[in-house]
């Protein structure tokens, strides 16, 4: 049962997905991997929506050059651990949820325990080696994985459901080049917000997800396309051969 305070706080969204939807969000446990540009938008909207338990993972400290896009932080946070500063901000936004900051780098050794008990994983990472590691572990734990990535004014989103959709390796077989990737802050806001909306849709069982499909956002030309991507029939993870 929702409390009077919760009914008031979430009034405008309960009219979208009902009290049962709000209760589902409140019971949900999600992992947000990466507390950068995407992670900021994802975490803020998931916390504001009342997702009950948010485990936020990042190993970095806040730098001045993060502030064009990482809207969880203020100038006074420079030098602080990202997850600690982020947890303070998220708890201030919504004291009714639990925020679990985890300051660590995601490795093959710890990735399984980082996903323990979670219903959903959101990808706010900034490189594909870590994404493949996390997506692979999520697949093995049968946890849906909402992928997002950006560059400049371009972005992409897809939702991976283990046993149903292609895996991340099939959607993006080879990693794009690494290095300092140019990013307009608003692009991480757009893509991270779409990821948060996917999470809310998944958890409240509403709408149609980006499953087996990838949204390709072109902010430079004001164009969004959705392409269908099929798996590698020989993929050892999601293939059919």
């Amino acid at each position, binding site marked *: 049962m929702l409390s009077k305070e919760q009914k008031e706080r979430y009034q405008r969204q309960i009219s979208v997905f009902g009290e049962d939807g709000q209760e589902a969000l409140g019971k949900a446990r999600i992992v947000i991997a*990466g507390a*950068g*540009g*995407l*992670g900021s938008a994802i975490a803020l909207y998931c916390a504001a929506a009342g997702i009950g338990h948010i485990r936020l993972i990042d190993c970095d400290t806040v730098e001045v050059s993060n502030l064009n896009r990482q809207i969880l932080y203020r100038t006074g946070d420079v030098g602080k651990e990202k997850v600690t500063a982020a947890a303070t901000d998220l708890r201030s936004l919504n004291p009714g949820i639990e925020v679990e900051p985890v300051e660590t780098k995601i490795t093959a050794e710890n990735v399984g325990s980082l996903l323990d008990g979670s219903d959903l994983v959101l*990808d*706010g*990472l*900034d*490189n*594909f080696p870590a994404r493949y590691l996390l997506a692979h572990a999520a697949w093995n734990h049968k946890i849906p994985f909402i992928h*997002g*990535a*950006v*560059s400049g004014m*371009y*972005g*992409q989103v897809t939702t991976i459901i283990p046993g149903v959709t292609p895996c991340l390796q*099939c959607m*993006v*077989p*080879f*990693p*794009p*080049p*690494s290095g300092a*990737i*140019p*990013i307009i802050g608003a692009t*991480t806001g757009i893509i991270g917000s779409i990821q948060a909306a996917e999470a809310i849709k998944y958890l409240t069982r509403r709408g149609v997800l980006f499953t087996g499909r990838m949204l*390709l956002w*072109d902010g*430079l*030309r004001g*164009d969004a*396309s959705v*392409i*269908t*991507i*099929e*798996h*590698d*029939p*020989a993929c050892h993870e999601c293939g059919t051969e």
Partner: protein
Amino acid sequence: MMNDRQDHITLTVKSFATFREVMDAKLTIDFPKGATIRTLLAELTGKYEGLGELMFAAPETLRDFVNILRNGRNIHFLAELDTPLDDGDVIALFPPVAGG
């Protein structure tokens, strides 16, 4: 949609992200039957200056991260550059992005 001319095929090509900086976002193109992805890329890299450099690490060697989908299937899982093309195929060219 079948092509009127039985010996030709018509493809739709869509490009995304940085590929759009050197080529059209969407075009239709005709080839004789028997064309492959190699035929298509030869035509496109000839038509659009800078596309060859974006897509190829060396002659005949696509950059790893260049995703070419034929009707949703990545040519990495088909026959790479030898993947055959049919009338009505939709080819998507997209370089995934990685930042966060």
